[in-house]
């Protein structure tokens, strides 16, 4: 080979080396770049995970704390509620005992009143006075019946009409029909009505006065007869008590508004404050109709 050829070959080799070196440099640079990217990516991922775990951990701790505090509040509330229920139970028991005591005292005092009537009756010789005293005693017993019915009702303030009137009828019948030969029958028809205490008092007293009047005056000379008593809800919001008999009636000249009997005067006095109306028909037997608003 000539010198010139040799030089050319050397130049070619040198150029080839340069090219190889350049390619090697490019390859190393790419490798470094890839490593850097991977490192940076890993670091970012690690940082992100750390941040996430910090935030998640912080939220979890806060949540656990909130749950624990909520639980403690619930326990405290439960304890307070338990204590409040105990206090209420205790208060209710006290009230029941007090109510029972009041009830007991009222009944005892009503007994004293009827005993006084009874003792006074023993000293009287005048039959009219004895009748008046007995009537007073019976009126006190109506109050006792009302009191008893209220005490035994579920809410201590209202009374079911039917058992109340049945009890009053039994009392009135037993106290006035002294002779079993008096053949008087009763027909009681009562709607499902509940009275408040005030209406129960009024209706009870009116009921007793009317039934008592029938028993004492409608059937003279122990004649047989029938007394019908109805209590119905009428016109949606009124209650109507009707006591009627097939006895001798009142006569055409009977003036209810100006009657002198205490019973009728009491009925007027009891009905008026409640906005009620009394109607009497004495032409064929006697029928007394009392209409009251059901509610105040």
């Amino acid at each position, binding site marked *: 080979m000539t010198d010139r050829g040799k030089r050319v070959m050397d130049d070619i080799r040198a150029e080839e080396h340069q090219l190889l070196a350049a390619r090697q440099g490019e390859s190393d640079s790419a490798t470094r770049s890839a490593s850097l990217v991977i490192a940076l990516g890993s670091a970012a991922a690690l940082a992100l995970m750390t941040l996430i775990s910090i935030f998640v951990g912080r939220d979890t701790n806060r949540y656990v704390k909130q749950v624990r505090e909520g639980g403690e509040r619930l326990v405290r509330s439960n304890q307070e509620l338990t204590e409040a229920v105990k206090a209420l139970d205790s208060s209710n028991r006290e009230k029941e005992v007090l109510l*029972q005591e009041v*009830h*007991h*005292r*009222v*009944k*005892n005092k*009503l*007994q*004293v*009143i*009827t*005993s*006084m009537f*009874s*003792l006074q009756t*023993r000293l009287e010789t005048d039959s009219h006075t004895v009748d008046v005293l007995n009537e007073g*005693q019976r009126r*006190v*017993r109506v109050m*006792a019946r009302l009191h*008893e019915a209220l*005490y*035994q009702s579920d809410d201590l303030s209202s009374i079911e009409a039917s058992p109340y009137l049945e009890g009053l009828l039994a009392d009135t019948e037993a*106290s006035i029909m002294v002779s079993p030969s008096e053949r008087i029958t009763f027909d009681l028809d009562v709607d499902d009505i509940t009275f408040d205490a005030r209406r129960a008092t009024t209706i009870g007293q009116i009921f007793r006065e009317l039934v008592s009047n029938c028993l004492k005056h409608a059937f003279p000379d122990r004649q047989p007869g029938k007394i019908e008593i109805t209590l119905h809800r009428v016109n949606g919001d009124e209650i109507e008590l009707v006591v009627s008999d097939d006895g001798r009636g009142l006569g055409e000249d009977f003036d209810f508004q100006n009657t002198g009997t205490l019973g009728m005067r009491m009925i007027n006095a009891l009905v008026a404050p409640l906005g009620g109306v009394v109607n009497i028909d004495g032409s064929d037997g006697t029928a007394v109709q009392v209409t009251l608003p059901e509610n105040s």
Partner: protein
Amino acid sequence: MKKRILVVEDEPITAMEAELIVCDLGYELAGVAASDEDAVRQARDERPDVILMDISLNGKMDGREATAEILKFQNVPVVFVTAYGDKRESLSGNLTVPKGFGYVVKPYTSEELQNEIQRSCLTLSER
């Protein structure tokens, strides 16, 4: 021989009426007691045939407890008198009442009290 009745009642007016009813019926009044201890003492001393016992009494014992004490030494018919309207309420408690016990609710009529006393005396006669 007249039956002897002990009246246990702490209300004087009510006791007075009961006394008169007992006498009206032809029975003998064994005594009137106004407290628990007095009731037990008079029952022990007088040995009545029937006791008219108010449930509510002055003293540590009520009428049921006083009756239980009396029944320890004498099997005697008792007519309970109570202002409570419910019989179970009046007679609840550990009380074994003898045959012939009666029960009257205040305010009672003279007739109601008479009937219960007579019923107890009748039961006593049938023993």
